[in-house]
């Protein structure tokens, strides 16, 4: 199982500000290893962020996203104490879900 995401969520005015760092190799499938063989593609394909039962962000990623992706975004409709849940799924079927509580503004 992949290493946990590091998530920080806090209020910024009337919006929730989220920073998330994901641990993932994000192999493009183009890189060659030391023996000259192609390293198979292994990358996050879908990211979903939800809060209070609502999807607030949905992303489809490809191989141009670099290793250990970092995302920073804001959304409306959350308040301190709510949970922000972030899930990703990659092209090999691996998944990871982590959550964080929104800190006061």
């Amino acid at each position: 199982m992949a290493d946990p995401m590091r998530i920080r969520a806090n209020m910024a005015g009337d919006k929730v500000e989220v920073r998330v760092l994901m641990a993932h190799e994000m192999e493009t499938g183009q890189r060659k290893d030391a023996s000259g063989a192609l390293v198979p593609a292994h990358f996050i394909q879908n990211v979903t962020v939800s809060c209070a039962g609502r999807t607030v962000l949905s992303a489809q990623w490809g191989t141009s996203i670099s290793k250990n992706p970092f995302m920073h975004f804001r959304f409306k409709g959350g308040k301190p104490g709510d949970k922000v849940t972030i899930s990703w799924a990659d092209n090999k079927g691996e998944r990871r879900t982590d959550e964080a509580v929104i800190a006061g503004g």
Partner: protein
Amino acid sequence: MNGIMKSPGLPALLLAAALPCICLAQQETQKEIERYRQLLAEGNPADLYEARGEELWKTKRGPKNASLQQCDLGLGPGVVRGAFARLPRWFPDTDRVEDLESRIVTCMVSLQGFKREEAIRNPFSAPGRPSDLEALASYVAGESKGMKLAAPLSHPKEIDAFRIGEQLFYRRAGPYDFACVSCHGDNGKRIRLQELPKLTDPNDARKIFTTWPAYRVSQGAVRTMQHRLYDCYWQMRHPQMDYASEASIALEVFMAKYASGGEIQAPGLKR
């Protein structure tokens, strides 16, 4: 002195006009690189390494099934906070000057029962092959973030290490005739677009030495000072330096003296 003022002539005037333009262009490049770095700084993947390092530190491992929590990094057994700011230093139990990595290895051997060869088997991570040492170094270094570097330089072995490091810093060798000083001996120079600190100038050393260990985007990993030296010698057309070798620690003691008083920013973020 001849009292007549000669006109500088057109070529000199053109050169004088061109110089500020060249300087401005260089400054613009630097500003943009700096802005890019600030944007990246918020999502430093080194955070992931620190978290893993902390977990490794507290986990029972090795033949003795013990954690590293009793490791003495210089401030007493179990004290991690602030220890990195006092490294490298002499340690009575090994009677050697040790840096961050070599001291972690010492503790892995003495507390956890690992053989030294096993502990240093994977010092630098590769894709799909994470290095415990990089994670542990990130954690320990991060526990000194914001503190001022104050590596001691009083024990005879510390002073000896300094003098050896000083000699090594100037040692020219190999097909390129390079020494550390070849790239790190002047202010305001760069290799390609990478700025180079003058390591014997505290103004540069205090700002740069303290940014290691750091997540290197080009490497996709946290790299430590051990890797930095290993990588320097690679570019200097030298062979692979032994991990945590006496030469590496001597060079670190030398650099730490000039960087003394600098604020620890590790783990940092670099290209």
